[in-house]
């Protein structure tokens, strides 16, 4: 068969009649590789599709964390409620006397309204920061998108959050505070808190793999963060020319927003807008950082 120069060989049919091939597994092989394993050079973001495919593992890890959290404890899940409750008591004793600080709302309720989302955030960051390092055998022996680890640590706090919200509901009833449609913002704010916790968790857990200082820095960092998040006192305490500093901390606006949702005071939309933008940007940057360091986790952990 003669070929004209330039004609593609692929278009040429076989000249010999081949007998039908016996069944072999390679007939079922895809044309394109499922995975190409090589050194990645470019910047990657989180592969949502892959996380979705592994969602069952995410549920299992969440379920595992929830199940073991209160195993062999006497008080069990009551700890989810006791933690914010005790903090509330202490803050009330120390700060409750300051006149007018809680703007008409009884101080214990004021404090608890801030402490419930804050406790969720603090525990989420602490757990996710250590999630990779405390699961060494999973990181070094099994493949799965590593972001599932901090994500599971953050999301497993939702059960505790739910229990604390029950306590909060009880307190609201006790003090006779009525709910208005403002409360519809609460789930949105909780979602924002989760996103913020996840970003911080991704940063911390990725850094922790290589630099173990993070394990020591984290508790103290969270403590400092508490004081900058308008949990103890409202942001009105901060002089106006410094308030922009407070706005750099998304949690401050979120906590204030939670209180506004519960007590039907006006929302600070500008602060919330800034907080949302910061959280989104923070998440994207954290995701990139995590993905880029992910490739060397197993080597450094």
């Amino acid at each position, binding site marked *: 068969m003669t070929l004209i120069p330039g004609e593609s060989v692929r278009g040429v049919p076989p000249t010999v009649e081949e007998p039908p091939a016996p069944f072999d597994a390679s007939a079922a092989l895809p044309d394109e590789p499922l995975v190409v*394993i090589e050194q*990645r050079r470019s910047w990657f973001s989180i592969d949502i599709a892959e996380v979705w495919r592994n969602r069952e593992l995410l549920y*299992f890890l969440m379920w*595992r964390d929830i199940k073991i959290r209160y195993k062999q404890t006497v008080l069990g899940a009551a700890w989810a409620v006791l933690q914010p409750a005790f903090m509330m008591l202490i803050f009330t004793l120390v700060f409750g006397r300051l006149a007018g600080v809680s703007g008409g709302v009884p101080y214990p309720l004021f404090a608890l309204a801030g402490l419930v989302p804050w406790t969720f955030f603090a525990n989420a960051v602490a757990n996710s920061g250590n999630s990779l390092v405390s699961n060494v055998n*999973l990181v*070094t022996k099994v493949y799965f998108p590593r972001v599932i680890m901090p994500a599971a640590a953050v999301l497993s706090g939702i059960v505790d959050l739910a229990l604390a919200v029950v306590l909060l509901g009880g307190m609201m009833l006790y003090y006779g505070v009525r709910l208005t449609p403002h409360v519809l913002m609460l789930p949105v704010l909780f979602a924002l808190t989760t996103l913020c916790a996840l970003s911080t968790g991704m940063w911390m857990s990725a850094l922790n793999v290589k630099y173990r200082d993070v394990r020591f820095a984290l508790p103290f960092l969270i403590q400092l963060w508490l004081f900058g998040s308008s949990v103890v006192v409202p942001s009105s305490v901060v002089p106006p020319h410094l308030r922009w500093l407070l706005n750099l901390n998304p949690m401050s606006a979120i906590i204030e927003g939670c209180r506004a949702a519960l007590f039907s005071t006006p929302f600070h939309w500008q602060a919330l807008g800034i907080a949302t933008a910061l959280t989104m940007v923070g998440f994207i940057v954290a995701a990139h950082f995590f993905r880029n360091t992910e*490739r060397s986790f*197993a080597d450094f952990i």
Partner: protein
Amino acid sequence: MRPIINIENVGKQYRIASERRAAYATLREALVGSFNASLKRLSGRGDTAEDKTFWALRGIDLDVYPGERLGIVGCNGAGKSTLLKILSRITEPTEGRARLYGRVGSLLEVGTGFHGELTGRENIYLNGAILGMKHAEIARNFDEIVAFAEMDRFLNTPVKRYSSGMYMRLAFAVAAHLQPEILIVDEVLAVGDASFQRKCLGKMSQVSRDGRTVIFVSHNMTAVQNLCSRVLWLDGGRVVAEGEPSRVINDYLRTTLTTMSQHTWSDPATAPGNDKVRMRRVAVQPSDGTLQDHLTVRTPLRVSFEYWNHIAGARLNLSVVIRTEEGHPIFSTSSSRDPEWSGKPFPAGLFRSSFEIPGDLLNDGVHRVELKIRRNEKELLYQHDDILIFDVLDAVEEGTVWFGKWVGAVRPALQWQTGLIEERRHSTV
């Protein structure tokens, strides 16, 4: 046939800690280190490499075809586990790429993800999910997994209360039901008793018969020979040999075990022994072959000792104990029934004593030889434990199914006879 895994020039380089910097980095060290490095660069002395690097793998080119059972052998540190980690996507290659045309399930460690506080039942689901099985898949295979592990009574106890044997059995049971297109197994069979290993290898053979691809790393040459259709020998991060199992295994064993299956001491001054008797050469080899051939359970072996006798007139007697790898004695034999020299006084000089172990006697595995030389049946002149160590391989026939290691220190091929005593027609008794 198109390959299901295509590995192209894969290499993995690790940085190893030099004396000045520890493997763990703290932020302080990293900051100080980078400051120092930039200073060095500025002052023109930046070319000294602070850390040493080494290539765990280099230039690996390989195609694995669907349905193949590939065994990977090599000494410790050859890069076998690193290759598996790269294929399992746990670590990234420094150079090259691997293309996978099927889903991979890896067994790099048994019981990954088991949590002590959860019960056996919960851990089955957790471990299965971690290995990549879907919840529905685990639920479907649940009863089989429990049966494989023989653990139905203890399913509701927290795993931290299990004995190590129970733990292993449960972990293996879950792992054995993993059914990906490509199964990668890394020396997990080194732990667990023989019946365990047999169960798991049986399952792996079955997986392969279903048309899946298996990549298997092991130090157990018998298992590799029986399970694998192709063997790869890695050493120092590179492919040394690849191909037909018995040939590659033979070559591998020859280079690693020759030094132990024969010794020659040419200088009498440094040879083991004393002023009464001194060794010159010891060897174990097939009776009708050369030292190069590997030993199987079928081959008759000749064990020979060459030694100097320094005391004229001594009536020497050699006795040998053959032990298993763990040191249990299998049998002992002595030269007291030697037709030519037993009971007779030995002149001073060089002697060779040897005996033949018939084929189809020893079981497969590593065997240790202990030698004692006595004078006049009583006085112990010389003793040498582990004077020889040799590995006997299982003999493999085409098409047989391997059932695992035969129980017992010896494995004689005895002739069975079966005869019909009385035929009875089917009755309702």
